[in-house]
């Protein structure tokens, strides 16, 4: 194979450029679109570098083509992390108003409204300014990307409580069926609302993105990216790579990038991802480790669950924080029978039993964590 023949460049970081990049359509694409078209809430909460942003950008474009009014706010880059809650809320509403071309001065509205709490103001705004003034009968769809960046902001509970309230009130007030939210990021639904005494944000469907599958997905764009002129040869190469990467979008793109002339594919993969030490400078793996170390509350349980999965035990997927976190790190996936299995051979080799055992926190640290949690809960 010839690198020069790879005319199309594969995307390894950030969204796939719709004009110049290679995009693989997966069942999750249609699933998200169908839910949103019906005005259902859905969340794309999944591990990093798996195509979340690309998916919602395409879903949004298709909704617009079909005449839906939509807004997409990437909250980290747009709103940042202001100290003042009002600045965040007004920024969010102003951006939504701007994209929906609403004729409302959000700053004035925010000050003049009779509602008192942020929660009430949000509901009132969505009801009176967004839903009531929409131009079609189709629901207004609001995408919020990088939703995990709200986890460190102290004041965003009101937002999630507000959009959940609108959902729950659909039964009594059909007007709320005319707005739907799609949250996107690397988070579990139950951590979005930080106040533990409040019911968690547990509404709508959470979509997980399946890795590429040659039997299920049309991978022709990938085959052509490898051999522009010989699709069959391209297919053979891609299938050999998928056997190693399990179809993980990032790993697959990385291997394709590194491929040289007439390479032995398993050898390339082993060279590319030789050991955790050698891939440490690769942001992808560093993010996985940082997620485990910085974001997982109960590292021990998470790692113990991982060791069971790795050991081949039958572990049914459940909605516990431990199961969810393990999937968000990206180490495991749900198989066709609803059980957790190692995500792919590359991860299983890098994050093996030896690693999992060494990464286990000491017993004493566990008690310290529990104590800290108890302390914080007061």
């Amino acid at each position, binding site marked *: 194979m010839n690198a020069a023949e790879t005319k199309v460049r594969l995307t*390894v*970081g*950030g*969204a*796939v*450029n*719709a*004009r*110049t*990049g290679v995009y693989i359509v997966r069942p999750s694409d249609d699933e998200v679109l169908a839910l949103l078209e019906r005005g259902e809430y859905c969340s794309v909460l999944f591990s*990093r*570098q798996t195509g979340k*942003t*690309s998916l919602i*950008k*395409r879903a*949004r*474009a298709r909704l*617009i083509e079909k005449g839906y009014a939509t807004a997409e706010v*990437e909250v*980290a*880059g*747009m*709103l*940042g*992390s*202001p100290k003042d809650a009002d*600045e965040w809320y007004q*920024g969010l509403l*102003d*951006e939504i108003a*701007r994209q929906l071309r609403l004729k409302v001065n959000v700053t004035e509205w925010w000050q003049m409204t009779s509602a008192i709490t942020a929660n009430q103001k949000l509901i009132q705004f969505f009801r009176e300014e967004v839903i009531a003034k929409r131009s079609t009968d189709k629901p207004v769809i609001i995408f919020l990307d*990088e939703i*995990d*960046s709200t*986890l*460190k902001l102290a004041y965003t509970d009101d937002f999630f409580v507000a959009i959940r309230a609108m959902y729950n009130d659909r039964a009594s007030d059909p007007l709320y069926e005319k707005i739907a939210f799609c949250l996107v990021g690397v988070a579990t639904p139950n951590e979005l609302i930080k106040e533990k005494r409040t019911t968690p944000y547990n509404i709508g469907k959470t979509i997980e993105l399946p890795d590429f599958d040659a039997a299920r997905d049309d991978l022709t764009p990938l085959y052509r990216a490898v051999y522009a002129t010989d699709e069959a040869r391209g297919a053979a190469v891609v299938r050999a790579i998928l056997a190693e990467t399990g179809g993980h979008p990032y790993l697959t793109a990385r291997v394709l990038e590194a491929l040289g002339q007439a390479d032995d594919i398993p050898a390339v993969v082993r060279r590319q991802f030789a050991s955790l030490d050698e891939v440490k400078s690769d*942001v*992808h793996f*560093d*993010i996985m480790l*940082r*997620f485990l170390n*910085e*974001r997982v509350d109960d590292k021990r349980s998470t790692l113990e669950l991982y060791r069971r999965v790795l050991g081949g035990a039958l572990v049914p997927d459940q909605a516990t924080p431990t199961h969810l976190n393990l999937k968000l790190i990206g180490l495991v996936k749900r198989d066709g029978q609803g059980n957790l299995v190692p995500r792919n051979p590359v991860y299983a080799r890098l994050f093996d039993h030896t690693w999992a055992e060494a990464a286990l926190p000491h017993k004493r640290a566990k008690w310290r964590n529990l104590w800290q949690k108890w302390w914080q809960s007061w």
Partner: protein
Amino acid sequence: MENTFRWDVFISHSSRDKARVQRLAEALRTTGLEIWLDDWVIQPGDDIYAAIEDGLEHSRIQILCLSQPANESDWVKLERNTRLFQDPQNKERRFIPVLLEDCQMPATLRRLKHVDWRDEGETEMAKLIQACTPPKLQKPKIANRKNATQTQTAPPSGAMRVEDARYVERPADIEALASAKREAETIVITAPPQTGKSSLLKRYLSECQKMGKKTALIYLSHFQENELDDYPIFLTELARTIWRQCSQPSEASPITLRNQRELTNYIEDRLLATVPHPIVFAFDEVDHMLGRSWQSDFASTLRLWHERRADPLPNPWARLGLVLASSTEPYLFIKDSLRSPFNVGLQLELQLFGEKEYQKLARNYGVRLAPAELDRMIKLLGGQPYLTQLACYHLTRFDFAALDRNAARPDGPFGSHLRALEKKLEDAGLLEAMKQLASYGTQPGREDLYRLRGTGLVREANGRIAPANDLYKRFFGSLR
């Protein structure tokens, strides 16, 4: 003689007028004039007096910014006297006083026509630009310049001029220039300090301009400390800098931004909506944003601009290219693990000079080196581009043996560079660690290790670090 001028304008000013002077310089630069401004030209390690002398010597026009602080400043006096002494008739070269605020005009200057920029008016700026623009057409001027650079009279300092014939291309150059020809992309150029990032950036932008793209070059180091401390002020100044460079000067639009969302919308509604060309924002010295309270937020905004380009729907962001030059891994731009990392765009690592580049550079300077000398020079300088250029410059006057013998001396050919490094390390509390490393190979602790790596003064091999080259090993090893 016309062709000895390397700069169009030399700007003398008091450091207390810095913010305003920078606006003035920026406005002049956007018209294509080459500007000598201390902050832009003098690099850490340069001999300041020599650099100023060199700047005055090779500038066609001197602008003296008049203000109360300027009248009191010795520096300004020195520069003024030099110029007036050099050219009492003030005919061949021009000398233009620019009034920044009400002040007592020195007697020697009263007979000269001045530009009144007290209220930063557009018409006065237009007059100044008119006065600074060379009488000859643009094209022969560039041709003359090329000859001028080949006279090789000047020591290298800072970024090289785009048309400098001594420039040596590396693989990253070729990739970058190819990208300049393509549709808008994001590029991150990474390399240790003083290894040619700014020069590459300038060449990249020059190539973009040839393709009909509008460009804005943003030096994060040119922002004032108070501008960097206050996020809204930084965003506002950034928007103004970009606007000045990408739009017509007459379309000045005074704005005040409160947050990054307003900046993003300003770019979409004002800039991309009115400028039909492809646009490139080039951020040099991105490292200057590290450690600011807004670092991650701003980096997320840059990432957002990149991501908008990916939208399937036709949108103006597809016309906006981004290029960032940094000594730091882009991964570190976004610190927290609660948002996507800065993992976007094409990352170009600018390699140090190898044997091939050494030979080219020596040839460009007209320097002959025996193969053994070439080997020793590579070991001595470790492929550090700035040092290599400086060495070639000195080799036009001394032989290699002399250069090698005196290399590590504080008063030697690299003396001012080395002394500045010593000072920098001392200020950072890293000097002792560097001395130990140079003398005994002692590995510093984790924290110092990371910080030393960021200076570009060490290299890594087999999990250990060592001074980046023999010169640093000798110099820091000789310090007591």
